[in-house]
């Protein structure tokens, strides 16, 4: 493992921009959250735009049993608010009658519901009382005026925290939605080190809610969980600071921070991690052949940008030109920033046209950006990686480290493979 850089980006100046932001709103998180929590239903209270976003955001329409829907506000709802609360009660009653398997219902606020100040907190309380104990009704806002893309998951998890049971003994809580297979790998590693009492937020099913209390330590597997962390801290939990578990270095540092906190000795740690670590290194090395020495430019998208830039620069030999994030939670990504070698522009927020100018001037070998920008940049001769794939693909921990490097290598390999020019 390379030594930490003499000067990391921890103290680097941040270019703060305000302008047009080419990002998703927090509703988008429903696409993966409704799959992660198998007995939860997400009811967006919003407009036709919200419904249209949900079916377009994933690039495909997911038709098999959607556990989300939109209650579309109409002219009549906008006229009188008391009306809207009654309407909502009706919609929820119908929904729950049709789906008796639902145990958690999230009322999800949107831009229009926020602007007309439709009180979904009050609605959730009222509906919880009506449908308890079978269904718990919670609310959060996934609106674009308050949340950017992955902040929707943050708002959702934060909304669950006050309802979590109280923990009295020492326990470990892992926050952040992971694909089931990755979560199982992580739990397997922790168990092998002797850490048995581990709970995850979100849990796959409503009855497995994790407990939290003053003896709880919390580790984050996603960088965008600022509100969730604050809510857990208010319940007395203590944050284990660590780089995010991407690649060999991130995973090892993350696991070691957790292990130390839970009293695991260095020998046990080394014994458990040695084999998967070696596998991860081998897999990264293979994919890195394509990435080594290439430059990368991150447009802001999911807040994964800083940890991923750390992975690409330190483990795959890439040079970061600009690392843009929609929002930087220093308390969470601080360790990753410290490890990221100085040099790249660190930017927060966005003015998309100015940022496009910078990317065009830099002509990076690889540009990580959203779906709205990828094809236009490809047409300008840049090679791009869609950022959204990074939140829809298993990329955390050792066994996925090679896949993660592979995601970035594939566009470059493809460009090398294609022979489409006319004959000379």
């Amino acid at each position, binding site marked *: 493992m390379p030594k930490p850089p003499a000067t990391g980006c921890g103290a680097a100046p941040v270019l703060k921009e305000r*302008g*047009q*932001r*080419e*990002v*998703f*709103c*927090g*509703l*988008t998180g429903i696409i993966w959250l409704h799959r992660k929590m198998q007995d939860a239903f997400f009811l967006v*209270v919003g*407009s*036709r*735009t919200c*419904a*249209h*976003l949900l*079916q*377009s*955001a994933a*690039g495909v*329409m997911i*038709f098999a*049993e*959607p556990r989300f*829907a*939109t*209650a*579309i*506000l*109409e*002219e009549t*709802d*906008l006229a009188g608010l008391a009306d809207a609360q009654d*309407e*909502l009660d*009706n*919609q929820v009653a*119908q*929904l729950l*009658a*049709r789906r008796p398997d639902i145990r958690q219902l999230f009322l999800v606020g949107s*831009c*229009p519901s*926020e*602007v007309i100040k439709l009180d979904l907190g009050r609605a959730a309380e009222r509906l919880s009382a009506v449908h308890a104990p079978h269904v718990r009704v919670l609310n959060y806002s996934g*609106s*674009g*005026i*308050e949340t*950017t893309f992955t902040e929707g998951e943050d708002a959702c998890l934060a909304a669950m925290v006050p309802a979590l049971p109280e923990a009295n003994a020492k326990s470990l809580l892992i926050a952040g939605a992971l694909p089931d297979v990755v979560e199982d790998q992580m739990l397997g590693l922790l168990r092998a080190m002797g850490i048995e009492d581990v709970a995850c937020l979100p849990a796959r099913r409503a009855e497995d809610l994790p407990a939290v209390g003053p003896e709880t330590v919390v580790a984050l597997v996603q960088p965008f969980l600022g509100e969730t962390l604050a809510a857990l801290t208010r319940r007395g939990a203590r944050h284990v600071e660590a780089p995010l578990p991407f690649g060999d270095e991130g995973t090892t540092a993350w696991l070691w921070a957790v292990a130390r906190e839970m009293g695991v000795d260095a020998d046990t740690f080394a014994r458990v991690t040695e084999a998967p670590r070696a596998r991860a290194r081998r897999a990264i090395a293979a994919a890195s052949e394509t990435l080594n020495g290439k430059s990368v430019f991150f447009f802001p998208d999911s807040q994964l940008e800083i940890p991923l830039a750390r992975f690409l620069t330190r483990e795959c030999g890439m040079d970061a030109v600009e690392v843009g994030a929609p929002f930087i939670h220093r308390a969470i990504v601080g360790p990753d920033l410290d490890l990221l070698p100085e040099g790249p522009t660190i930017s927060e927020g966005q003015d998309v*046209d100015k940022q496009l100018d910078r990317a065009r001037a830099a002509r990076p070998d690889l540009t990580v950006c*959203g*779906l*709205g*920008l*990828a*094809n*236009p940049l490809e*047409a300008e001769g840049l090679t791009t990686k869609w950022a959204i794939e990074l939140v829809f693909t298993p990329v955390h921990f050792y066994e996925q480290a090679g896949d993660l490097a592979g995601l970035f290598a594939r566009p470059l390999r493809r460009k090398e493979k294609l022979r489409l020019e006319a004959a000379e």
Partner: protein
Amino acid sequence: MKLSVWTYEGPPHVGAMRVATGMRGLHYVLHAPQGDTYADLLFTMIERRDRRPPVTYTTFQARDLGSDTADLFRTACEDAVARFRPEAIIVGASCTAELIQDDPGGMAETMDLGGIPVIPLELPSYQRKENFGADETFYQVVKRLAQPMERTARPTVNILGPTGLGFRHRDDVAEITGLLADMGIEVNVCAPMGATPADIARLGAAHANVLLYPETGETAARWCEKTLGQPFTKTVPMGVGATRDFIAEIRAMLPDALAPSEAGLRLPWYSASVDSTYLTGKRVFLFGDATHVMAAARIARDEMGFEVCGMGCYNREFARPMRAAAKEYGLSALITDDYLEVERAIEDAAPEMILGTQMERHIGKRLGIPCAVISAPVHVQDFPARYSPVMGFEGANVIFDTWVHPLVMGLEEHLLHMFREDFEFHDAAGPSHHGGKAVARAEDAGGQPPDPRSISGPVMEETGADVVTWLAEAERELKKIPFFVRGKARRNTETFAAERGVREISVDTLYEAKAHYAR
């Protein structure tokens, strides 16, 4: 408040984006919160456009609401004009911005934007939808920029209606432009697709208008008729008969127009050839936008020999013509944008094929009914790399292929009838010309797979099963019938039994019904 799982149309500002993105030199400044930028990916991903839609979003956030969102709009407007140097801009609000009442149109009109035309849009997001948004935007652009002017010396027409993100618009325009060229008619302007604001200004030079897509171009066509004195075509040239009617319409408007060649037209012979006999009387259910469905119904009945057993559209604006068209087929039209209602109607009609949208394709998958896609909403598959119009003579050829493809073909269908219990070659294995792994027949698997319901709740059995009962032996016999006709057989038998007051269906009843409905 209306519960919606899937929507057929986006919000009206997406319609405005389809106009702006289809055109060149026009920029759209949209007062909208940050998440609304998702709409860009419709164009860059689904349509694979190689440039960003010409849209600047103000992307206001909650913290801006307290201060001055109007200022944000002004800055966005000025920046967009300075950076993109459009010939004209359209300005408007998305659903959220409509609520904060900043009046972007009014603001932009009072700004100094270098004298370019500023066209304000009023698109009521909580009442109307995407097609209205496109139609209204195009109308506002035309009304603002087009002027009466001298007609061209040679016979010319404008093509009105094609937009960005339109179902096969790219190829339909090419096909109809070619057809018109064959008739000795030049296209003066095609709009919105491909037109600049300067092109819109010279719409008046054409002798007539060809309205290809009433959903997105009719209001503009009517305005041109009234103000510029241009007649417009009423027949959408989809299918053989409609294309011929369209040609007749053009020749009535423009006496110099020649009769085009039908040399490349293959549908009539393909449909008449004996291999197509198996298509006769196949019961099809049609759903989509009104224009495509009404045209498809005529093709289905008159050119393919199908029986139309249900039809409808999601765009309420066209409910009246849709209802009138359905009456001609002895049907009452289904007018709804509720996906679950469409699903129920299809289940009830038990068609042998669905001609619908991407959503009906999924309904078909769930119910085991083959489906061909005939209408928006669009999917990445609706933008094929190959030339694939649905209008004009080549469009008719394309439609023949597209509609036949999902079906089990002639002799294969017979073999399935003859050897119903073959363990490999059975109906659940699917048509043999399709990809996908054939599944071995599970013992006594009674037809359709279990149906994972969404939120539509228990299926109401409305086909008369509450009145008549199937005896076990008859039920077994029914299962021997291939799945693609089983629905029809069940329905016919139940109707037959109910009409005769028969309470129990035996094997005899099944075959009596079969004889009764024989054709």
